[in-house]
């Protein structure tokens, strides 16, 4: 197990390093940063001055190494726009994004688990069909549009929920739904398939033969085993939610990391964008690492083979 864990950790570090190199190069090579910073009305001399001032005239690898050395010391650079340390800016915004990501995950699980279990208990029933319809519809809804529709309905017509800001937990209800529904179908399918497999197994038959009551069998024996793949996928999904929260954060004007990223892109504030890409990638890498380790811990076949 330890050898497996170390191997995975090394791989994760390598992935993080590669992501940082690729994103750094992408952001530097896909356009002229100095021009973007100086603005459209700047003269050629202004652009050159900006290029010199921010060290953008140096070779790409020199710029990367300088950035990477600082990043390893916890210094993610200084914002071009605010002249503030990027790390502090991101740290201030992280709680909002984390709250959003976790509540989106909770919403997805709260809907998907019961539906998946019911669907597995009664295949081809109306619950099963409802679950299927929900996942087909869910995967076709553009998230930003769904968010706006929720806003019109619950924010404007019914006036149940605030349409922007982070004043109370109520502010997170709509964003969590708009972000979380997209992950729901995956959980539902996994729960349904897992439950059906477990329910057909010998040990459930044994439990039934022993005369245990149905709910006890369901909760104590079946769900516990069926839920394992769901937990691992949930970790990965949380990584996706954090990375994908940019759209939802900008719809609801939630001042989280995604919103900061969007604003920084519009302002050509690339130290911030670069750092956010890295932070979100790190979250994803750590969460997948945890999921891998959890899987290997629960299923010895993975760590041996």
């Amino acid at each position, binding site marked *: 197990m330890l050898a497996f864990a170390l191997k995975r950790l090394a791989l994760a570090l390598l992935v993080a390093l590669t992501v940082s190199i690729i994103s750094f190069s992408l952001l530097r090579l*896909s356009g*002229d940063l100095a021009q973007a910073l100086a603005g459209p009305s700047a003269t050629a001399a202004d652009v050159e001055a900006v290029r010199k001032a921010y060290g953008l005239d140096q070779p790409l690898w020199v710029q990367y190494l300088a950035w990477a050395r600082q990043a390893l010391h916890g210094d993610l650079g200084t914002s071009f726009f605010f002249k503030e340390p990027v790390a502090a800016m991101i740290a201030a915004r992280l709680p909002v994004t984390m709250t959003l990501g976790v509540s989106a995950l909770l919403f997805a699980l709260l809907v998907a688990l019961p539906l998946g279990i019911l669907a597995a208990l009664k295949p081809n029933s109306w619950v099963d069909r409802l679950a299927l319809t929900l996942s087909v519809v869910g995967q076709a809804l553009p998230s930003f*549009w769904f968010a706006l529709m929720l806003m*019109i309905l619950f924010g404007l017509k019914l006036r149940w929920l605030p349409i922007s800001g982070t004043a109370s937990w109520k502010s997170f209800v709509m964003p969590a739904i708009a972000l979380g529904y997209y992950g729901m179908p995956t959980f539902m399918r996994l729960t349904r398939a897992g439950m059906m497999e477990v329910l057909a197994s010998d040990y459930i038959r044994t439990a039934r033969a022993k005369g245990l009551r149905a709910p006890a069998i369901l909760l104590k024996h079946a769900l516990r085993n069926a839920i394992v793949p769901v937990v691992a996928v949930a970790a990965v999904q949380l990584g996706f939610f954090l990375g994908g929260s940019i759209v939802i954060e900008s719809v609801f004007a939630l001042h989280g990391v995604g919103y900061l990223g*969007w604003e920084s*892109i519009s302002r050509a504030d690339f130290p911030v964008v670069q750092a956010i*890409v890295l932070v*979100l990638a790190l979250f994803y890498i750590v969460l997948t690492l945890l999921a891998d380790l959890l899987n290997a811990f629960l299923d010895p076949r993975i760590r041996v083979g």
Partner: protein
Amino acid sequence: MTVETFSGAERILEPSAGALLRRRVFGHAGFMIGAAIILAILAAALLAPWLAPHDPYAQDLTRRLVPPVWDAKGSWLDPLGTDQLGRDYLSRLLFGARISLLIGFSAALISGLIGTGLGLCAGYFGGRVDMVASFVVTTRLAMPVVLVALAVVALAGGSLHIVVAVLGLLLWDRFAVVTRAATHQVRQLDYVAAARATGCSTARIILAEILPNIMNALIVIATIEMANAILLDAALSFLGLGVQPPLPDWGLMVAEGKEYMFFSPWVIAIPGLALFTLVLAINLVGDGLRDLAAPENRN
């Protein structure tokens, strides 16, 4: 002689393979509905210049935010109403279908080429090649797609070509994973060993023996990625960093209508519904193809 005639007569009574396939395809409701919607949207996109009642770019500031025809204040002059600049919404919607279809199709094509190539190599050669390929896929998955796409499009400029290229270069992971697994399975089959024994080159084995056999899976993934690309393009446009105005992109139409949505909800409802319908249809066709291609559903 008599036996042969007999078996011949027997065969005539059985439905042909083509007829069986047709029956299965037409019997699959989801696939048929999805295909019908896609064909209708495709026809609308191709015939947009003839179907559209007005020029999609023509502004009429005296007729701004006119509601659709089913509203009391609507008229048949602009069946789906007009936007904040007085442009006919139906015409913009029809021309917008071209953009969504073009982006979805081209991005899926580019990502398909990259992902399939990577997956074929990883699955066929295995070993070190496989390790490198799976590392590349892991790295790609770790990058936050929306943020990276936004940043690159913002720097490189929001033209249609750039958006297609960026989406195509980002969405190949699923192709690679599925192709790798399928190739890995197929390469163990006897006929691949036979091809190798008769001295076929590696390129020939991969392209002529393996690729046709994993095509079903690839087409299903292509529908998923097409839907993905359309949604992602809409999200980029919505955030104002995708294709630029005055293009009638559906995501952009939602973004432009956002300010007016509380008093004229249809300005965002209509393009959003169009996006939803197109993506739903593509997904239905994809699910249908997967069902139809599954061996247990044959005959």
